């Protein structure tokens, strides 16, 4: 157990989203643990560009052969870009959750939102704790 990739430079939520901050922009996706638990992802519902979301609000859905899961905003912000490649190839999230499998880019409305997110070590421990 505990074999999930959790890149050190990212922040994580207990709902298994990751956040990469690049200046005023936050790139968001779901973690390696999340894609592993969901198994083969078959559909991703993306938000509209321009939509705004509060931290903790659901902005999309990931559907796999096992389950459909909401994706929650790790921080508040406005959607400036969505990964439209996922519409035809949602399985990219399984193959490359932190790279080509990114889901949305937010313009951060409140950058301090990210302060209470988990760092990689805490998130990795949280993943392990759920695998008894």
């Amino acid at each position, binding site marked *: *157990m505990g074999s999930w990739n959790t890149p050190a430079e990212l922040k994580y939520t207990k709902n298994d989203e990751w956040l990469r901050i690049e200046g005023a922009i936050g790139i968001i996706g779901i973690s390696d643990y999340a894609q592993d*638990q969901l*198994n*083969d992802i*078959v*559909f991703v519902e993306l938000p509209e560009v321009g939509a705004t979301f509060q931290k903790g609000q659901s902005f999309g859905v990931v*559907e796999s*052969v*096992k*389950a459909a899961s909401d994706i929650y905003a790790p921080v508040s912000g406005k959607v400036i870009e969505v990964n439209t490649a996922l519409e035809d190839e949602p*399985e990219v999230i399984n193959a490359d959750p932190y790279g080509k499998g990114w889901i949305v880019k937010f313009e951060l409305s409140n950058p301090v939102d990210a302060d209470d997110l988990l760092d990689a070590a805490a998130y990795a421990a949280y993943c392990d704790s*759920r*695998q*008894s």
Partner: protein
Amino acid sequence: MTEPLIYELSAAGRRGALLPAIDVPETALPAELLRDDLDLPEVSEMQVIRHFVKLSQMNHAIDKGFYPLGSCTMKYNPKFNEDMARLPGFALLHPLQDQDSVQGALALMYTLQTWLAEISGFKAVSLAPAAGAQGEFSGILMIRKYHQERGDTKRTKILVPNSAHGTNPATVTMAGFQAVELPSDANGDVDLAALRAACDDTVAGMMITVPSTLGLFEGHILDVIRAVHDCGGLMYMDGANMNALMGIVKPGELGFDVMHYNLHKTFSTPHGGGGPGSGPVAVGDKLKPYLPGPVVEIVEPASDEDDAPLYGLRMPEKSIGRMKAFYGNFGMHVRAYAYIRIHGADGLYNVSRHAVLNANYLRVKLRDTYRVPYDRICAHEFVVEGHFPDVENVHALDISKRLIDFGVHPPTNYFPLIVPEALMIEPTETEDKATLDNFVEVMKTIAAEAREHPDRLRSAPHTTPVSRLDEVRAAKQLVLCCRPIPEWAE
């Protein structure tokens, strides 16, 4: 061995049945609706019979084997129910018949309403909802109308524990409310501190599945009900798991305001392709005026004991309206009535006791082989984890598929979401000890195979006409047609 599609059996000019001569005046069909390329298979009656019998033999059914599909209550459906539903006086009714000519059917519906109220401890029942999801929907619509009529429109949230049926948050959302998920505590009960923190004057109510999808009876149910009532919310109980509670607990007396039944679970009416379902709603005094309709009432009491009352259909005073055309799925009412009548009060109590006993027997027999995350006395079902700490890459799905090779229908898998690799097992009361013991042996065999021959699980099933199906392709490729789609259908 696979069976060809019925289109592949077709040969030009072959026919199955000869239509009788027309005995009513013939009316010409509108010319624009006529076509000469109607693409139907041309097969003989014998071919049709054999084709569909073969398909049915490939299926798994409770009449063929053990079916511990958690949450679904796949118990034996007595053939007696079917005999009763086929009585011509029931089977040949037309829903538009004059009410005076269907007094027997109305008497049956009235009596079933009364019994369902008695079993659940509620004041009134409507048989209108067509299935469980519609029962849930009508219950939440009643809660909505109750608050609306009081002008209490700031109540926009409904609390749903994370051990609830997956339909519960969907129902809440469909009824226009916001679903607020509540965590479970270490025992699998509702986290009371989180519940109390969520209770305020924006809460319209709470929707709780009892026993939960973990198969557990909520440990502090009275505290939960009190907390929600104290903030002005109403309590909805998802009664799909009433199979565990008959004669033991009456939800209406615990303080719940509304509950739905699944007649196709608790009262053995067919489901899983053999349906339709039926999802009556039961309510206390507060919600009685809002019941979906029509409901059956006594219009004129009997004048003496040799007389029968006159029954009639009526819409409750402030009804949320109809859930479907006509009067619910009447054929299911007949079957459920027959089941309750045959069992009587003592019989129904024994149904629930044995359902609970069978589940606990399996839980204890399996807990040394499969991890039971909430290992306490369960109700009618329990959840194990379908993976092993010492085996890589064997999942609940592989165990489920391997069970098929042993003639057992897989348990519900990957639900509830709060248990990793969940296998939800519900044996029901209609299985004997030998069947349960065989299941235990099979589950132990599979656990041993996972260590010695894991590929046997990963590539299962091996004994079916087609082996492991491509679930990803099934979910992604939505247009399935074995032949070119004709132009008129595009």
